[in-house]
């Protein structure tokens, strides 16, 4: 699992530019599932047929895209103005090392604010070491997207930090689950979705074409285990979380119950997640076609939407056990 996370978090893939992530995952699953295809929005859809004709079609969705900064304009001094791709918080953006798809590196900087002026992304620029616009435009064009360049690293015994843990950690969980899934009564369709960070767009079209009986989103969730921030009852390292609800979906109560029952069978302690904001691919799956029951299995994560998102490998292994037990039942 650790190796998978390290591999997947190192691949470039902001919303709308998930191609490379899809290629890497396709390489991992080729020959290990019954079919692999991509759709118009770039979703990677991998199906593993179930043993039983009476089995369900279960769609699992982990999104490939990460947040980023899209270049909107190049100033004559060579600095790049940017806009957000997904939810960026200015407090996580000051003096960050960033990288573009073509390998060009830069530093994201906030210009000095005038007295009384509020911080906003419009006051940020990327310095790519160009002396003027002409030189900058040889390296980067408007429309190119930068992502945090931080590498993945270990902290403590069980934890990893990296940008794009949201949601590559869940991609790793899904790849690992699909690789080891055998003798499953249900047909499992692993969707590595696109454009979640800008409004769960990929999973919407994927769910329409996959037409599953039920859907499970795999995503990270926020923790409330910091000394001055205990608003949420989720702690890192205390086990995967089963989502009861967030701002955009209410999990199907029976699915929640069955997930907890599966967790009990494999002796994994799960946390109950109630998130007063946010949303996952479950929000778009639940409304597809005639609607379907949905739930989200969440990986607790500190500093979500920053350059150093932290997950605990024990939570990841626990999530895999619970998910596998659920799929097999």
């Amino acid at each position, binding site marked *: 699992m650790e190796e998978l996370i390290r591999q997947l978090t190192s691949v470039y893939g902001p919303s709308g530019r998930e*191609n490379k992530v899809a290629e890497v995952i396709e390489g991992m699953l080729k020959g290990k599932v019954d079919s692999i295809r991509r*759709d*118009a929005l770039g979703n990677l859809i991998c199906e593993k047929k179930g043993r039983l004709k009476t089995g369900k079609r279960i769609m699992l969705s982990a999104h490939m895209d990460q947040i980023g900064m899209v270049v909107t*304009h190049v100033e004559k001094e060579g600095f790049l103005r940017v*806009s957000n*791709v997904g939810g960026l918080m200015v407090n996580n953006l000051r003096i960050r090392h960033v990288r573009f798809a073509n390998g060009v590196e830069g530093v994201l900087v906030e210009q000095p604010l005038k007295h009384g002026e509020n911080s906003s992304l419009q006051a940020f620029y990327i310095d790519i070491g160009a002396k003027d616009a002409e030189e900058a435009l040889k390296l980067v*064009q*408007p429309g190119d997207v930068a992502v945090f360049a931080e590498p993945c690293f270990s902290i403590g015994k069980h934890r990893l930090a990296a940008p794009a843990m949201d949601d590559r950690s869940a991609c790793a969980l899904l790849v690992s689950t699909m690789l080891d899934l055998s003798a499953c009564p249900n047909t499992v369709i692993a969707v590595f979705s696109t454009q979640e960070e800008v409004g769960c*767009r990929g999973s919407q079209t994927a769910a*329409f074409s996959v037409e599953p009986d039920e859907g499970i989103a795999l995503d990270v969730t926020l923790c409330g285990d910091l000394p001055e921030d205990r608003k949420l009852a989720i702690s890192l390292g205390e086990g995967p979380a089963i989502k009861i609800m967030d701002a955009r979906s209410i999990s199907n109560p029976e699915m929640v119950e069955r997930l907890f029952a599966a967790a009990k069978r494999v002796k994994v302690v799960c946390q109950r997640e109630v998130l007063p904001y946010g949303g996952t691919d479950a929000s778009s799956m639940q409304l597809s076609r005639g609607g379907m029951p949905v739930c989200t299995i969440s990986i607790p994560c500190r500093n979500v939407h920053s350059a150093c998102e932290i997950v605990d490998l024990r939570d990841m292994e626990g999530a895999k056990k619970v998910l596998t037990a659920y799929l097999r039942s």
Partner: protein
Amino acid sequence: MDLKTLCEAQGLSGREEAVRRLVRNECVKTLGADAVSLDGIGSVIAVRKAAKPGLPRVMLAAHMDEVGLMVVSATDDGLLRFRAIGGVDARVLVSKRVKVGYDTSEAASIPGVIGAMAIHQQTPEDRKAVLPIDQLFIDIGARDKAEAEKAAPAGTPVTFDTPYTPFGEGHVYAKALDDRAGVYNLLRLLNAPYDGELVFAFTSQEEVGCRGATAAAYRVQPDIALAMETTTANDLGDTPEAMQVCRVGGGVCVSFMDTASIGDAELYRALLAVAQKAGVPCQVKQFVAGGNDAGAMQRAGVGSRTLVLSIPCRNLHSPASVCALMDVDAQAALVRAWLATL
């Protein structure tokens, strides 16, 4: 069909009937009645069948509706209260001339003017404040409530009263350039050479949430869908370059992303390359703002690859938007050139 006729036609979101009639007639004239249909939400869909198999099904979309106002009630004095349909800036409304109701063969619309307190009565504070829409009224010269309600009952559509006016070097100002300029180009492209299936969607209700396009794209399920739109040109005064979005006269504007969709990366590259090769004036939209039918088309059903091509417009959503005819031509030319490469 000329741009003047299209801009001067009245067509609020959900009340596109006059524009629909013009568009439908034009489509039937060019493609035949069998190729043209209306859907349940008011869009006109014209289909040109494929002459050769194996080519992508392309849908070109432009929305018929315009922003405007709707009467909600009348005051005892006979003034009309109204609400905005679509994104209308309250600051641009005071003292504007409007048409209350539609011009039809049976009756003409009622002229009206949007009133507010005269400058003589304003305090210095009043002059700084923006009057919200619920403190503005339309004066149609009615004596009392009964007379006003009879002339313009609740639900009566109200459009800006602006004649289409050419000015300067190849510029025009008009109401509803958003998106009649796109509709105009879509009609000009009915004969565009392409051997694959080509669908023209004249959509309804874009300004209130891209509703027509959602239904149209669900029904058509195109492989590729292009939104032929207008977008804000913020190129006046001393706006810093990074905030200008695009420039009038700078060519058709291609979006890598807006708030409703991210342009398909391959299409984006392809269209820019085609523009360069064919010598079509073209610019990249240098700001992320706004959203349009592409967002709806991208996500309908199994999804489509989408891209937005816009004509830069100053004063978008106001009684007098400004665009350059060369940019209008560039939008049509780029689509035509791109279709030839498929």
